[in-house]
Structures are given as structure tokens and as C-alpha cells.
């Protein structure tokens, strides 16, 4: 790649921030319309984000028989506990079915023994490699290792691009002036060891909120995944056959949907061990070619997981397998801020997953679909506007432009403070009003610190900005969790064990120094939105 001059300025119809699955699909969709597209990724489009390290299956329901899709939607709507929208679920299923096969010249979709092409489940590294090749061929300008730090606002309040740094070129600043902007920065695990989630620090939530956008569903951050102790290997497939044991060697019976909470209760008492001896031999033999990363930790530790018992832990999935994100106001994944669109985990997934994790399947289908819709919305917005240069104002604050005297901040301590409130099983999985209030107090004080004192280091502005995004995201999650004075789905309050019809609605948060909360309208799945013309 050629070296860019200092203060690189790029112009594009559409800027996509984030090069994971949603961002890459968005870039492809925009480029296919003939729009000029820049995609900027904090790391490398192809390895960044949680798709690259995983094996995303998609929500894959054939159009025939005709009752299959309505049935799939009904089943998931029940699981979503009243917060999802059948209209959005239907369009996600339809678009996923249509769009995934368009990747066929870049991803070798295998055939099963009956010679039927298998589209549904893709292997992460190959999927992201395929998407990168696709968008490269479509002429998308990819800026790798170029974290976006803040949005650029036009005088009318609409978003006209973003500003960031090229971190492998001495953090040289760059800006992209765009007709419209798609945020596809992912969710956040609050810096847990969830595989592939290190770069997902909630940057998009912070940037969207600074522009005035709202977030929804941020209370649904209590999703956890099993991994061998000390490892990142949160691939769930191997645990399908897992047997778990307490320190006395007694088997814990973690059957059913409450498996994670049951394991969490045991982990609060002491170490938990696991064995995969129940996995049939023929499956064991195929594991390395199904998920080549899955067995790496065991091989390197010299552990035979099919005979030995190994210690396990739970990693927080935050909004990655949880649900919250920037509120979507229209079919085209527009936010309430003109010119700003959202795709993938940075957008709230409540529309399709409701109060629960969408699991792998719904989440991947959402990333793909919202990638397409946000790009179309962005292209339309860009075309509808005068593209001549208007004055653009960078609007980043916390971690970038302190209110007080800037000094070097201890960003590690700030990040640790977020982890200390968002990861512990007793605080997050077994919530109470008192515990949530205490966490909120602590993080309000940390927010105050980063807001006033934590100046970005000009030579390396990213860590302070990431820390600010993490604190902001955690504060929204805590505020929403306190407001949802009940238990529902991923949000379980020990002091409010019942689900209340009063809260059959979404909780919408916004604001930075003062977090504003409002209850969304009651969701009535029977009166879904009308399709756009």
C-alpha cells in the first residue's frame, strides 16, 4: 500500500466505520450501487471483530413450505419475550436468504452428501477473507489500522464523515468527508476475553451518542460464554457435549436454557471443571476441519479434553451476544441523527432478538441484513444532498477533548474499573438494584475523571478514547438495567424476579454526562410496521 501524505483527506459518498461482517456487507452494498465507498477499520478488515474468529451460522429459513418462515418467527418471538418485531424478523430472514449466495464466487460453499449447497454456516476467517476480496474488487477504499476517533458534523447537525488516525503511520490524522456514514463498529464485551472482541470497545455507541443518537436494549448485557480457564476459546460447539464437575468431582447437571446461570452459581462457589468425553468419536475426528481454532489451546497445553478434566470460566459477551445498541428509527437502519446509519452489533438487535441473545444465527443474519439496509439508506441520503464542502466540525469529546486541564490519564485503571463492574458474575448475572446503583456511582465517578482530566495523548489518542467509550457504554447499560425494574430474558434481577407487563417495552437511553432514560412505546408484535414503499 502506498504511504498517504500527512493529514490525509478522502472524499466518498459513503464512509463505513468498521470492517467486520456488517461493515463489509455495507461497503459491498453501497459500492454495488456505484457509490464511492471508504471503509476504515481499527485493525485489519479480514481479521478484526468477532466474525473472523468464529463460525457464523445465519438465520436460514427457506421460503418453502410457506409456513416455515412464519413459524420460525413465532418461535423466536416467544423467546424474545415481547420486545422483538415480526416485521423486522421477516425481512431479515428474506434478505439473508437472498444475499448470502451472492458471495459464491468468493466463498466456496460446500455441498452435503445429497449434493445440496450449504449456505447457512460459514467459517469466520474464510468468510471475512471473502468479504474483503469482494469489496476490494468492487473498488472500496479500505483503510486498515485506521481507528476512527470521532464523527464530523455539518452545520445542520447531519453527519458528514469522520476523523481518525493511521496507527501504523505514527498516528497520522486523517479524515473522510462523506455524504453519509455507516457505523459498523461492533458491540462491546467490556474488554472481556471473548474471542476476537478486543477491538470492540463501544466506540460507535460513544460517537453516535455524541451526535445525539439514542440507544436501546443496553440492559441486555448479561450474556456469558464458556471457555477453558486462561483461554479466549469461546467456541460453543465443543461444549454441546460437555460434562461439568465441581471441585469434589460431582457432576453438575447444566441442562436447559439456564445452563450459564447454573454454571455461574457453581463458579461463585469454586472452580468448575469440564470434560468432553461424551463427544462421539466420529465428531472428534472432524473437529479440526470444522473449527480449526477450537482445539488449539488443548493441543498447546497438552490436554486431552476427551479424557482429562480441564478448568473452565465464563467470559462476558456484553452487547456482542447480548443485544443493546444504537436505536434504529427506520427501515434503512437510520439513527435519529441525519446522515448516520448503523449496522451489525452497534445497532440494537432488539428488533429481531428482543430480550435475549440472538444466538449466532439471528446475530449473523442481522449483521448481514442491517449492513445491506444501512448502506442503501446511506447511498440515498448521500444522493439527496448537496455534496459541496460544508464546514465540518469534529464532535468527539470524552477522552479526546477534556473539559479540564489535560494530563496523561491512567487508561488501564479506567478500563479495569469498567471490567470490575461489568464482568463479575454476581454483579451482572445476578443483578439487584443495590448492586447496580453502586456500580453506577463508581462509573459516574470514573466518567467524571475521563471527562475532565484524561486528555488524549497526541501521539497515541486511541487508548483514552476507547476507555471513554467503555465507560459510557457501561453507564448506559447500568442505567437501563436499573430502569428495567423486573426480570426479562438476559436481564435478571434477584430483587425483581418477576416479568412485569409494565415493562413490555424498550428502554431508550441517551446523553453522556447526564444519562437520559425514557420508556419506549409498548411493543405490540401484532401491529408491526408497514413496509416502506
Amino acid at each position, binding site marked *: 500500500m502506498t504511504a498517504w501524505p500527512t493529514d490525509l483527506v478522502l472524499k466518498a459518498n459513503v464512509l463505513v466505520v468498521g470492517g467486520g461482517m456488517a461493515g463489509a456487507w455495507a461497503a459491498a452494498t453501497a459500492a454495488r450501487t456505484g457509490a464511492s465507498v471508504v471503509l476504515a477499520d481499527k485493525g485489519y478488515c479480514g481479521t478484526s471483530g468477532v466474525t473472523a474468529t468464529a463460525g457464523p451460522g445465519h438465520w436460514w429459513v427457506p421460503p418453502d413450505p410457506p409456513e416455515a418462515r412464519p413459524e420460525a418467527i413465532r418461535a423466536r418471538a416467544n423467546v424474545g419475550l415481547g420486545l422483538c418485531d415480526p416485521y423486522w424478523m421477516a425481512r431479515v430472514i428474506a434478505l439473508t436468504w437472498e444475499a448470502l449466495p451472492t458471495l459464491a464466487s468468493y466463498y466456496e460453499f460446500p455441498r452435503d452428501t445429497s449434493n445440496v449447497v450449504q449456505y447457512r454456516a460459514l467459517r469466520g476467517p474464510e468468510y471475512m477473507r471473502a468479504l474483503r476480496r469482494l469489496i476490494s474488487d468492487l473498488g472500496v477504499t479500505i483503510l486498515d489500522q485506521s481507528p476512527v476517533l470521532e464523527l464530523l458534523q455539518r452545520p445542520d447537525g447531519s453527519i458528514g464523515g469522520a476523523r481518525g488516525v493511521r496507527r501504523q503511520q505514527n498516528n497520522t490524522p486523517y479524515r473522510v468527508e462523506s455524504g453519509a456514514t455507516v457505523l459498523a463498529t461492533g458491540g462491546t464485551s467490556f474488554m472481556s476475553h471473548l474471542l476476537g472482541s478486543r477491538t470492540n470497545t463501544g466506540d460507535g455507541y460513544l460517537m453516535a451518542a455524541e451526535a445525539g443518537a439514542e440507544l436501546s436494549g443496553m440492559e441486555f448485557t448479561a450474556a456469558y460464554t464458556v471457555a477453558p480457564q*486462561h483461554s479466549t476459546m469461546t467456541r460453543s460447539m465443543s461444549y454441546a*457435549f460437555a460434562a461439568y464437575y465441581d471441585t469434589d468431582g460431582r457432576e453438575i447437571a447444566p441442562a436447559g436454557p439456564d445452563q450459564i446461570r447454573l454454571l455461574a452459581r457453581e463458579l461463585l462457589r469454586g472452580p468448575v471443571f469440564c470434560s468432553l468425553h461424551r463427544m462421539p468419536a466420529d465428531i472428534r475426528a472432524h473437529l479440526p476441519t470444522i473449527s480449526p481454532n477450537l482445539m488449539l489451546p488443548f493441543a498447546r497445553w497438552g490436554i486431552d479434553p476427551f479424557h482429562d478434566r480441564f478448568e473452565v470460566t465464563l467470559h462476558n459477551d456484553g452487547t456482542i451476544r447480548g443485544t443493546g445498541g444504537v436505536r434504529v428509527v427506520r427501515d434503512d437502519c437510520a439513527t435519529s441523527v441525519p446522515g448516520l446509519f448503523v449496522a451489525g452489533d452497534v445497532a440494537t438487535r432488539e428488533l429481531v432478538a428482543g430480550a435475549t441473545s440472538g444466538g449466532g444465527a439471528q446475530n449473523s443474519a442481522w449483521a448481514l441484513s442491517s449492513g445491506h439496509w444501512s448502506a442503501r439508506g446511506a447511498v440515498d441520503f448521500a444522493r439527496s444532498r448537496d455534496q459541496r464542502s460544508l464546514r465540518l466540525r469534529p464532535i468527539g469529546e470524552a477522552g479526546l477533548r477534556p473539559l479540564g486541564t489535560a494530563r496523561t490519564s491512567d487508561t488501564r485503571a479506567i478500563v479495569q474499573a469498567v471490567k470490575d463492574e461489568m464482568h463479575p458474575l454476581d454483579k451482572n448475572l445476578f443483578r439487584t438494584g443495590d448492586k447496580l446503583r453502586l456500580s453506577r456511582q463508581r462509573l459516574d465517578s470514573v466518567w467524571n475523571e475521563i471527562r475532565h482530566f484524561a486528555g488524549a495523548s497526541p501521539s497515541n489518542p486511541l487508548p483514552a478514547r476507547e476507555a471513554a467509550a467503555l465507560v459510557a457504554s457501561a453507564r448506559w447499560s447500568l442505567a437501563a438495567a436499573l430502569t428495567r425494574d423486573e426480570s426479562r430474558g438476559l436481564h435478571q434481577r434477584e430483587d425483581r424476579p418477576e416479568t412485569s407487563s409494565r415493562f413490555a417495552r424498550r428502554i431508550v437511553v441517551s446523553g453522556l454526562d447526564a444519562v437520559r432514560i425514557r420508556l419506549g412505546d409498548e411493543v405490540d408484535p401484532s401491529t408491526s410496521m408497514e413496509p416502506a414503499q
Partner: protein
Amino acid sequence: MIEIVIADRCTACNACVTVCPTNVFETGPDGRPVIARQSDCQTCFMCELYCKSDALYVAPDCDRPIPVDAATVLASDLLGQFRRDSGWDEWQGQYPNEHWLMDGVFRRAREAKSSSN
């Protein structure tokens, strides 16, 4: 975390510098990659997948460094395992991508559970 770049194998292509999602590597003065920010490593193994000379070793521990020496790792069969099992580069065709079988694995796990209940 990433523990070692094996100098004997490294061809100085610096693909690891390019693809690391957390920007752990830097090109050193001799043109070869060095591990510049080990604590930023997210233990995702992606650098190994993109290293055609199998010169990188990521220890599975994500929360503490586990130093290794080149001789031990070279003597193991661990280098390049991820890239080989993924069927990348020269391994294409020999290790087919069977990821699509995953659905069947979950289905059989459900069946096994319901039959034992």
C-alpha cells in the same frame, strides 16, 4: 498471547504486522516483525493463519505471558497447525472446510441429551 517470532523461519513478509487486528507487531530495524505490544494481543491466532512460513507461536493463555523458546516450539508439531487444518495456501484441498457440519454436531448433541433424560 503471541510469544515468539521464530527468526529461522520468518521471511520478513510482515503479513503479521498488516493483519494483526490489535496492532501487536512492528517491523524491526532488520526488516523482520517484532512483538512490540504483547499485552495488546487478544489471543485470536489470526497472525498464525496468515503466516505462510509458520514462524509464529501464540500460547493459548490470554491473561499471562507463557515464555517459550524457539527450539521447543520448533520440535513440537504445533507451528502451522491452524493454517494446515484450515486448508490454506499449500494445504488447499487436503483439509477441506467442513464447517457446515456444525449444525449436525449441535443436532446430535441435542439428541444425545434428550435420550439421556
